[in-house]
């Protein structure tokens, strides 16, 4: 494989985007100053009168029967308010499936015990809860809990877990989910091939490592409602919490706080049910904050995958057939494994036309930490494999890796691996050439330090699986002084979810951003907006806010037109006023207009519902049909230096290029691209949650290392705007897509530098040296 020295940016198709006043501007986010001045209150910052402190007693064994559990000494400790075990729970089960507002049926087997009763399946599994007057007392009480385990043979390797006779993590067997794609004539395709290239790629467990450990405060109010103030990506877990605790849905109120990062790790329920149970049992406010060590034990991980590609190609680069096998390590409980593995399956062959395609994916239970959502959600793992495979096939053909990809890139109007037509822009070559060109001159090799370059082009959906029948609501109103209020239940993980809604409302209603106040993230007081997951909030709640803002605008414009004696089409709103477009001196301040509307009894507040397209569930044995609202297509290119004496890899240059459809706030988009690629680079080179026979080997941030400011170059963000997304004003999603191409780009660059591939992430110095030694043999 040879990388060309110079890639010319491919000219972009002509796009004419409407001129906008607030959207598209690099405005200071509405949440920014609160955060930088330390004013923003996070979940662990709240206190209540007579508040108790909670702690969770967790399993020290990866696979065992609980022979004996005695909490009497803990209960007897002075200052302990209660100790709860599985015996005290009404339902005792926790839904691990399809979080959020979806009213669809749950998948079978998708429940986990809230507290383990007789059997534990991973180290860290919750067994008992303590509430005490001080944190120290709660900690002492944990030490007084007596437990006796009888080890049960466990299974830790997903391939072993699929063998006949392997220990079964939970009934009926270890296969949590199976997905298949069967397209065309795979045998015929391979027969046509000039070459067949086969490789296996592997990825580790990864921790989200958000800076804010899980935390919450709960209390019962005068209506007997359990209020839970918590950092969560999903305030709509209130239903699952209510069911687990045994109260009606309308007796649980989740007040989401600003999150100190989520990345999928605060998508599943964390502290909420424990808080609800403890406040219900004690009738006192309760606070529960995880330590970093507890956070690493307690929350989900990114799925390790083992992915084998077998690709048939003609000498001209045309892919004639592909067979792809994927095994995802689902850990001890299903959580979102079925859907993570579905995402991986659907994007298994990447943004390429492969008519003859066979994909087989299994998610497999093991006695490890459970795995669930993490930015990229299976599609990122698929990309690590398919983009390395594309470079390996190019190498086998002795073709430039971009030239090879160009032969096979999907185009608008093509159908993806499950036959869904891609309707939006597909600018893969435009992105790849820009990212590569932006690397500039190649850094020269320096003795044992070899320089390599690599890139990756990827597709990542935004918006949820359409058979979940996704909806969002937003409420927009204008006050009588012309200021604007947005109310929308969107949890803000820090990516600017709430700010984007404000910028959209400001655009439509003709006010500056600082005139908009947003209330968000509340399951009872703000309209339900669904989960902050799946890169869906801009798409879903952005569209709902756009719709609600336009309803308010319609009222304002009609009344203003009446005032000016012109048609509504002749009126626009900007700079806090309504004005006649052809005669801008004729203007009416919004404050006056709003007062007139109010006096006339007009509706100045509107609630809008946005629904994604609804589809039926697809056949898991032959996936075919429409699954996602749309995709974001992306490229990332890097230059790395590999020290062949130490094995150390340094990323020297990094460029992400993404068609985001329309950038609502370019600074926020740039932040996503830089932050997402930092996580991708960390995944490629250093991050691994090590679990040996179920025992956690990386229990804190001393062992689980994430990139520091000295480990990363500044990623240059190139933002393209095709205007073809299904989000508001043509936007696509960027939250997850920003991460997806970075890790495979790094892996390809390392292979380019040293001429041999390290097939498993992270690409540590040890593995680089081992690969170099293998090369010499």
């Amino acid at each position, binding site marked *: 494989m040879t990388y060309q020295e110079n890639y010319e940016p491919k000219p972009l198709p002509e796009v004419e985007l409407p001129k906008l006043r607030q959207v598209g501007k690099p405005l200071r986010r509405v949440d*920014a100053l609160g955060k930088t*001045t*330390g004013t923003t209150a996070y979940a662990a910052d709240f206190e209540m009168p007579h508040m108790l402190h909670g702690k969770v007693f967790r399993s020290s064994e990866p696979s065992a029967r609980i022979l004996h559990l005695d909490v009497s000494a803990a209960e007897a400790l002075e200052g302990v308010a209660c100790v709860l075990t599985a015996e005290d729970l009404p339902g005792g089960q926790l839904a691990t499936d399809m979080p959020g507002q979806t009213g669809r049926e749950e998948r079978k087997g998708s429940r986990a015990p809230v507290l383990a009763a007789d059997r534990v399946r991973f180290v860290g599994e919750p067994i008992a809860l303590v509430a005490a007057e001080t944190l120290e007392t709660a900690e002492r009480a944990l030490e007084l809990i007596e437990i006796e385990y009888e080890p049960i043979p466990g299974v830790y390797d997903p391939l072993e877990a699929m063998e006949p006779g392997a220990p079964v993590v939970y009934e009926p067997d270890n296969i949590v989910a199976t997905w298949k794609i069967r397209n065309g004539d795979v045998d015929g395709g391979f027969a046509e091939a000039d070459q067949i290239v086969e490789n296996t790629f592997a990825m580790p467990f990864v921790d989200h490592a958000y*800076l804010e450990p899980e935390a919450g405060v709960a209390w019962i109010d005068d209506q007997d409602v359990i209020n839970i103030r918590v950092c969560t990506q999903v305030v709509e877990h209130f239903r699952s919490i209510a069911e687990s605790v045994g109260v009606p849905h309308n007796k649980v109120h989740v007040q989401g706080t600003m999150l100190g990062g989520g990345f999928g790790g605060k998508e599943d329920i964390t502290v909420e049910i424990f808080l609800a149970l403890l406040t219900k049992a004690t009738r006192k406010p309760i606070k529960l904050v995880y*330590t970093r060590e507890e956070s690493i034990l307690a929350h989900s991980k990114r799925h390790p995958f083992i992915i084998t590609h077998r690709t048939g190609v003609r000498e001209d680069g045309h892919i004639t057939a592909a067979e792809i096998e994927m095994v995802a390590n689902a850990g001890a409980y299903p959580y979102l494994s079925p859907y993570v593995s579905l995402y991986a399956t659907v994007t298994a062959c990447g943004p390429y036309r492969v008519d003859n395609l066979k994909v087989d994916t299994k998610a497999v239970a093991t006695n490890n930490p459970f795995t669930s959502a993490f930015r990229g959600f299976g599609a990122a793992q698929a990309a690590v494999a398919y983009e390395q495979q594309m470079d390996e096939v190019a190498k086998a053909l002795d073709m430039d890796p971009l030239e090879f990809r160009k032969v096979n890139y999907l185009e608008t109007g093509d159908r993806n691996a499950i036959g869904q037509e891609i309707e939006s822009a597909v600018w893969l070559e435009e992105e790849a050439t820009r990212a590569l060109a932006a690397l500039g001159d190649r850094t020269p090799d320096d003795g044992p330090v070899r320089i390599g370059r690599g890139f990756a082009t990827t597709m990542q959906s935004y918006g949820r699986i359409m058979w979940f029948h996704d909806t969002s609501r937003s409420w927009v109103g204008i006050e009588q002084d012309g200021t604007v209020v947005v109310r929308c239940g969107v949890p803000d993980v820090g990516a600017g979810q709430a700010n984007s809604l404000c910028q959209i409302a400001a655009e439509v209603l003709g006010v500056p951003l600082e005139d908009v106040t947003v209330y968000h993230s509340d399951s009872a007081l703000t309209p339900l907006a669904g989960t902050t997951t799946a890169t869906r909030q801009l798409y879903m709640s952005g569209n709902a806010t756009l719709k609600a803002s336009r309803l308010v605008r319609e009222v304002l414009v009609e009344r203003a037109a009446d005032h000016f004696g012109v048609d509504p089409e002749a009126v626009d709103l900007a700079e806090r006023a309504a004005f006649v477009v052809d005669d801008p001196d004729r203007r009416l301040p919004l404050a006056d207009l709003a007062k007139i509307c109010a006096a006339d009894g007009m509706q100045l507040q509107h609630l809008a519902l946005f629904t994604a397209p609804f589809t039926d569930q697809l056949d898991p044995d032959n996936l075919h049909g429409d699954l996602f609202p749309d995709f974001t297509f992306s490229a990332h290119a890097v230059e790395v230096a590999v020290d062949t004496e130490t094995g150390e890899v340094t990323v020297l240059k990094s460029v992400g290029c993404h068609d985001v459809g329309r950038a609502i706030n370019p600074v*926020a988009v*740039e932040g996503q691209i830089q932050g997402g690629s930092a996580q991708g680079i960390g995944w490629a080179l250093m991050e691994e949650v090590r679990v040996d026979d179920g025992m956690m080997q990386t229990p804190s941030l001393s062992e689980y290392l994430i990139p520091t400011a*000295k480990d990363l170059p*500044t*990623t240059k963000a190139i933002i393209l705007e095709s205007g073809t997304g299904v989000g508001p004003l043509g936007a696509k999603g960027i939250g997850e897509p920003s991460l997806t191409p970075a890790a495979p780009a790094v892996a390809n660059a390392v292979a380019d530098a040293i001429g041999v591939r390290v097939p498993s992430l992270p690409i540590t110095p040890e593995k680089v040296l081992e690969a170099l030694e293998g090369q010499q043999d």
Partner: protein
Amino acid sequence: MGSKIIALNVNGRTHEIALTPNTTLLQALRDLGYTDVKSGCDKGDCGACAVLLNGEAVNSCLVLAWQADGAEVVTNAGLGTLDAPHPLQQAFADAGAAQCGYCTPGMIISAKVLLDRNPNPTEDEIREAISGNLCRCTGYAQIIEAVQLTAERMGGGQ
């Protein structure tokens, strides 16, 4: 060992409080309501709890409150407020350097110490100065930009 009354001077206000010897400065500050000081790891890995202790940046989780008896502590919230932000707080907001915002107070403390000593730092010097503060959202680029922007606005090096 029992409690002892110590004096903590925080953001210009003196608190006389009884604390046990194992209470960290982080815990003492948060218990006093200085919740802008964040806890991310409680063992010095992440820098979210950084404060100024007599002008030096420290991880407050690694300092015992008794060690800070009589000392002057400044937290990020002591540098400025929402209506009168410190130039660093303003620049961090303008440059998009706060995404989730959880690392931000500690990050700004590290940047403050850097700019106090070196009003016109290079990119490498900024990276070195904030290398003890983990950020999981930004990839650090906009944080570095924010420090550079502050230096420019404060007329650093001129």
